[in-house]
C-alpha cells in the first residue's frame, strides 16, 4: 500500500496567505479566551459538583458563586510569593509554566468544528490542522510530565521530590498504555491526521464512533488519561496524606494556581482527545448533514457547540470519578498499568487488526453497516468478557489475593506456629 503523501500535503485547500494569517490569529484569540475562562469556570464546576455529591451547596457567596474563580484569581495574584532558600530558582519559576504549556499547545491540532467555507475561502476549525496531528499530540503529552518532575526536583524538598518521582513513574507507565490503546483507532482511520479520524467516525454515527467500534481501547484510554492528568484515583504525585500535596508543596500564590490551571487544562485536553478519538469529534450523531458540503456557518457553529458539549460531559465524568473513587495504592497503580492495561491493549491491537483484515477480505467497506456492526458486536463480547470473567478481584487486587491460596495457607500455618510458640514461651517465664 502506498502512502499518499502528496495528497495529504495537498489536503489543505489553497487560500491566500493573508486570509490564513488573519483567520489563524482570530481563531487563536477566540480560542485562548474561551479556554482560559473555561478553565476558570471549571474550578468552580469542580467545587460545585463535589459539593452536590456531598449534599452541600458549594460556593454561592461571590456573585451567587459565579464570580468565585475571579475572586480566587485576584486573591492568588495579591498573595505573597515565597521562594524556599534551597530551591533552584530558575527551574522553580519555570516549572508551573512547563506544566501548563503542553496542555495548551496540544489543542493546536484538535479539530473542534466542521470546516467553514467562508466568503474568503475554506477555514479549518483547528488552530493548526497538521497532517501528523496525532503524533504531535503523543509527542507533546509526554512533555507535560516535565513541569511536575522539575517542580518536585527544584523545590529541594523530600516530599516534593517523591511526588515528582511518582508522577514520572506513573506517567511513563500509562503513556505506553495510552499510546497502545489508540492504535486500533488509527488502524480504523488509516491515518494519523485527526481530521481523518473524525471523518472516518462520521459515516454512520454513532455506530461508527470509535467508542462503539473500539470500546476496549476507549476504556484503556480513559483510565490512562486519568493517570496522565494526575486526577483521582491516580493522584499519587500529590497525595495529601502521604506527601503533603507532593510536587507543589513549596509553591504559593499564582505559581500554585498555575498548577491548578495546568491540571484543568490537561483535563480539558484529555477530554477533547477522548471526544475526538472515540466520540466522533465534532460530528453530530444520526445525521451526515454536518459532514457534507456546503459547509455553512450554521453547521460550523452547531458542530463546535456539540464538540464542547462532549468535552464538558467528559470533564464532568472526570469530576464524577474523582469524588467517587479513593486513591490507589502505589503497587496497585503500577500493577494496573503494566500487568493489565498494557497486555490488554496489545492483545486488543491484535484482535482488532485481525477483525479489520477479516472484514476487508469479506468485502465490507469501512462505511458499511456490516463493518461497523460486526466490530460493535465484537466489542460488546470483549467488554462482557472483561467485566464478568477477567474482573474478579484481579484488575485491582488487595495485596493478599496475589498470593497463591496454598502459599497463603502455609503462611498462616507459620504464623499460628509462631504465636503458639510465643504463648508457650510466655507461659514458661
Amino acid at each position, binding site marked *: 500500500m502506498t502512502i499518499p503523501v502528496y495528497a495529504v500535503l495537498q489536503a489543505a485547500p489553497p487560500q491566500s496567505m493573508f486570509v490564513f494569517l488573519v483567520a489563524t490569529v482570530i481563531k487563536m484569540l477566540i480560542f485562548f479566551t474561551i479556554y482560559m475562562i473555561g478553565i476558570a469556570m471549571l474550578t468552580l464546576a469542580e467545587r460545585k459538583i463535589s459539593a452536590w455529591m*456531598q449534599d452541600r451547596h458549594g460556593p454561592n457567596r461571590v456573585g451567587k458563586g459565579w464570580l468565585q474563580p475571579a475572586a480566587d484569581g485576584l486573591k492568588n495574584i495579591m498573595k505573597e510569593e515565597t521562594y524556599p532558600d534551597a530551591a533552584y530558582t530558575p527551574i522553580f519559576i519555570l516549572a508551573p509554566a512547563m506544566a501548563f504549556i503542553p496542555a495548551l499547545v496540544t489543542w493546536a491540532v484538535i479539530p473542534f468544528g466542521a470546516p467553514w467555507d467562508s466568503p474568503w475561502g475554506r477555514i479549518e476549525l483547528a488552530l493548526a490542522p497538521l497532517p501528523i496531528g496525532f503524533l504531535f499530540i503523543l509527542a507533546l503529552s509526554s512533555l507535560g510530565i516535565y513541569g511536575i518532575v522539575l517542580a518536585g526536583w527544584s523545590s529541594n524538598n523530600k516530599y516534593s521530590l517523591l511526588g515528582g518521582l511518582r508522577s514520572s513513574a506513573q506517567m511513563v507507565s500509562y503513556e505506553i498504555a495510552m499510546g497502545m490503546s489508540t492504535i486500533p483507532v488509527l488502524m480504523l482511520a488509516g491515518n494519523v491526521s485527526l481530521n481523518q479520524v473524525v471523518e472516518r467516525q462520521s459515516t454512520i454515527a454513532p455506530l461508527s464512533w470509535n467508542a462503539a467500534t473500539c470500546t476496549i481501547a476507549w476504556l484503556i484510554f480513559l483510565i490512562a488519561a486519568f493517570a496522565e492528568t494526575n486526577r483521582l484515583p491516580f493522584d499519587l504525585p500529590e497525595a495529601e496524606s502521604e506527601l503533603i500535596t507532593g510536587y507543589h508543596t513549596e509553591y504559593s500564590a499564582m505559581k500554585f494556581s498555575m498548577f491548578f490551571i495546568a491540571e484543568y487544562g490537561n483535563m480539558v485536553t484529555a477530554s477533547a482527545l477522548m471526544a475526538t478519538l472515540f466520540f466522533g469529534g465534532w460530528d453530530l450523531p444520526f445525521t451526515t448533514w454536518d459532514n457534507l458540503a456546503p459547509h455553512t456557518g450554521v453547521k460550523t457553529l452547531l458542530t463546535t457547540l456539540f464538540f464542547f458539549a462532549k468535552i464538558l460531559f467528559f470533564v464532568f465524568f472526570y469530576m464524577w470519578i474523582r469524588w467517587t*473513587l479513593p486513591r490507589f495504592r502505589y503497587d496497585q497503580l503500577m500493577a494496573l498499568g503494566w500487568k493489565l492495561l498494557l497486555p490488554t491493549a496489545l492483545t486488543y491491537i491484535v484482535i482488532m487488526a485481525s477483525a479489520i483484515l477479516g472484514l476487508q477480505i469479506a468485502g465490507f467497506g469501512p462505511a458499511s453497516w456490516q463493518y461497523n456492526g460486526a466490530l460493535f458486536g465484537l466489542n460488546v463480547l470483549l467488554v462482557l468478557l472483561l*467485566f464478568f470473567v477477567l474482573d474478579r478481584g484481579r484488575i485491582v487486587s488487595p495485596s*493478599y489475593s496475589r498470593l497463591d491460596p496454598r502459599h497463603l495457607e502455609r503462611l498462616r500455618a507459620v504464623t499460628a506456629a509462631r504465636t503458639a510458640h510465643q504463648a508457650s514461651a510466655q507461659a514458661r517465664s
Partner: protein
Amino acid sequence: MAIGVKVLERPIEQTSYLRATLNGMRLTLKHMFQEKVTWQYPEQKWPLSPRWRGTHRMLTTEDGKAKCVACGLCPTVCPANCIKLVPGEDEKGNRYPLVFEIDEFRCIFCGYCQEVCPEEAIHVGRHYENSEYSREGFVYDLERLMAQTHPVCEMWDPADPKGE
C-alpha cells in the same frame, strides 16, 4: 507481610472492581440530586433552645430603669468572677447599681446570675452573635445590658423537667 491478615470470602460483585466502581458512581450521582443538608448560616439560623444561655440582658421597669437592686448576689454566685457591681442608694433609700459590668469574655454562661437574682433583673439571653474590635468592647456596662432586646433564657423548671 500479609501474615495474619483476615481474608474475607466476598461475593463476586464486591471483588469485581469495575462493577463496584459503577455502583459507587451511581451512588454519587444519586447524591447530586438529593436535598442539601447545609444551613446557609447568616440567612438561615438554627433554632435555639428556649433554655439557651447566651449574651446577658438587664430587664427594666416600666419607667425605663434597671430592675437591679444591687443586692450583690450575682457577683457572689458568679463562678467566673465576671460581674462587677458597685451599689448606690438614692434619697428615698432605694438601692440601685452605680456600676454594673459583665465581662462577656470571662463569663462561662452558667446562668447562675439569672437563677440567683431575686428581682429577675439580670438574665442570660437566647443570643450568640457578638463581635467587637477590641477586648474592652466585651465588657458590657449597665446601659448596654439594658439596651439588649433579644429573648431571655427560660430557666429549667423542676416541676416541668422536660419543658413541656
